[in-house]
């Protein structure tokens, strides 16, 4: 096992052994192999200790690559790293929604955790609205764990990590990263720092808004017709940019066919990193790299595909069963 692949030489110490184990787990995860329950437990405990020390809004330096929703699409996550330099060389911010919908929520989340433990200063993980107990019970992650382990322990360990994830990040004091969007209760980024984040995402309040709200063509803060959740418009974005002296809000949370979408004269961008979402949307994915001059560059990538014997490519679908429906 090579312990030097991060560019530094490690002495064979306790720390060295830990890194060696992490490297092994990373290899297994990339192959989609089963990780033992006790091993997941130990990873989750280590991750909690690490994340506990991060503030609600983490400072990150350029250059950095911002990634949107992953949703358990492990193979596409591997493509993402491959196309954007890899964690050995580049810095990353993930905007949340690692789990649910896709077939490999656990492997995707654990891979990111392993990278976080292995290269703590190169990867920042932000909480998405799917990183909660309630949502994962309905949208696939819980079911996946029950299928893979026969019990819910691993799901519980992961949910405990969710509670420690940061709520946002700020790049060079100029680019604000968040999963969903703004909140009427939050005027300055400093106000986010006073939120007690170590809890299940509540159904209301600033923490909820930051993870759930959406930009829209509205004149002011407005209520979603669903009866909960905020929409915000250009006015709110401009004001937030000005108050906090920043130039961009980078968020995820909404599917975009082209992988990214800039709005409000470039003051806000939605980044989406799950190509062919749910294995059937046919969209491409994107990541956004911010360089030292705060220039933006988007890298677009396509879904991993399997080919059939006749040279045709077929997308795995969730429900392809031909049946004698009535």
């Amino acid at each position, binding site marked *: 096992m090579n312990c030097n692949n991060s560019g530094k030489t490690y002495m064979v110490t306790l720390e060295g052994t830990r890194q060696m184990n992490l490297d092994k787990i990373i290899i297994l995860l990339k192959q989609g192999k089963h990780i033992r329950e006790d091993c997941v437990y130990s990873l989750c405990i280590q991750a909690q200790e690490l994340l506990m020390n991060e503030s609600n809004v983490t400072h990150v330096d350029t250059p950095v690559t911002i990634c949107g929703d992953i949703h358990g699409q492990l193979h596409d996550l591997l493509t993402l790293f491959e196309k954007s330099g890899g964690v050995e060389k580049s810095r990353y911010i993930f905007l949340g929604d690692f789990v649910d919908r896709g077939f490999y929520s656990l492997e995707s989340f654990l891979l990111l955790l392993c990278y976080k433990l292995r290269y703590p200063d190169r990867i920042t993980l932000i909480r998405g609205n799917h990183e909660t107990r309630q949502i994962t019970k309905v949208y696939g992650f819980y079911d996946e764990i*029950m299928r893979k382990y026969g019990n819910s322990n691993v799901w519980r360990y992961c949910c405990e990590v969710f509670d420690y994830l940061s709520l946002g990040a700020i790049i060079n004091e100029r680019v604000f990263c968040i999963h969903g969007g703004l909140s009427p209760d939050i005027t300055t980024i400093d106000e986010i720092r006073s939120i007690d984040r170590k809890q299940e995402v509540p*159904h209301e309040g600033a923490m909820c808004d930051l993870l*759930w709200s959406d930009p829209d063509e509205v004149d002011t803060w*407005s209520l979603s017709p*669903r009866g909960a959740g905020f929409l915000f418009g250009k006015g709110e974005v401009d004001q937030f940019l000005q108050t906090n002296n920043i130039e961009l809000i980078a968020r995820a949370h909404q599917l975009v066919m082209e992988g990214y979408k800039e709005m409000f004269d470039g003051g806000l961008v939605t980044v989406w990193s799950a190509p062919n979402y749910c294995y059937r949307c046919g969209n491409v994915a994107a990541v956004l790299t911010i360089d030292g001059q705060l220039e933006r*560059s988007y890298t677009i990538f396509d879904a991993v595909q399997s080919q059939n014997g006749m040279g045709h490519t077929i997308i795995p679908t969730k*429900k*392809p069963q031909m049946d*004698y429906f009535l």
Partner: protein
Amino acid sequence: MAEKRDIRRGPGIRTVEINAARQVHARTVRARIPIDIGAIDSQEPATSTAISAPRFVQPALPQSSRQPSAAHSHVRHTCNNPRNPPCAHCGTMIVPSPVATLPLEDHPSLTINNWTISTKKKPILNSQELEDWENNKLKGLTLPEMIFGNSFVRIQEKTRNWSIEFNALDALREVKLKDSGIRVSYSKKWMDSKQQKQRQQQRLSIALGSSQPLSDIDDSALQIARHYDWTYTTKYKGTETSGSKKYKFKKDDSQTLPIDKLARPDHILFYDDMILFEDELADNGISIFNIKIRVMNERLLLLSRFFLRVDDVLIRVVDTRIVVEFDENKVIREYKEMEGDYKTLLTKHKMSHSHDPKAALRDSNWVAANIPLITRECEILNLNDPN
């Protein structure tokens, strides 16, 4: 702004992943082949063998013993798209084979006598198309997250120039541009907390003698900006076109679908299943509009289903079934609306079985069989004798 756009294939995926992908693919293809279910498991390719040449389970040629002999001796259909083999009278059914490189597209088609059945599958709408739909075609509607706006299912009768088609645009045109009255389960709690916060800050603001409000939320923030039915409930029954006015459906609720004939395991010549639109309702459930079609030698059945689940609130199913009897040139259309309270349904399922009762509420078939029927209508169109 620099833009790096690269959607070429990468250097390839690992063997293990390829094998996993192959299994998924093999399962996908096999699932489309009308063979008895018992034979499926034994064909699973071995996971551990890393093989260089792709080894796929080819669609099995139908064994004549399995086929109803009548159907085979009387072949009368043609496959219209060579990209969707194999159907050389009749290797087996038509296997829709979407090309997954962008633009993803699949357009299988089949003709039986004077009837042509075709489907088209394309990816979700891009931003430009969405803008056009939002600003022009469907003005006033905030569009669902996923719209397969270039996909369709079409049934055509050529000699009389009659056809019926199912597409997303026409389905969404029937979504009401007014408040549905439906709210997510925690809406009241959410609103109360916001109102409370508002009042608190007003009091604080007065106490401080400030003329400026301390919070961004004023009364308008708790108002709905745009009214439309966010559940995307649609009563769409298909889009008809006809060369002549006499070819119109006639309402006759006494008609029933030939369930006995449809339940027969007649050889399926063409099968497709597609979503026209879908929305995850911001993780409050699902709203999905889906079409399934199967074509046999003597008739076809199409099922268009709108399925809505608002978690902890309600469940709704709108089904349209179309049966075409090819020899009689007869079309029957049955329309049903069903709706039930979420908790009542959950209780109903809890009594029956299962450790995960909510799984049943995600299964539209179970739901459709278990919720109260609100409306049923039936129409008939006899193309041989329209009057």
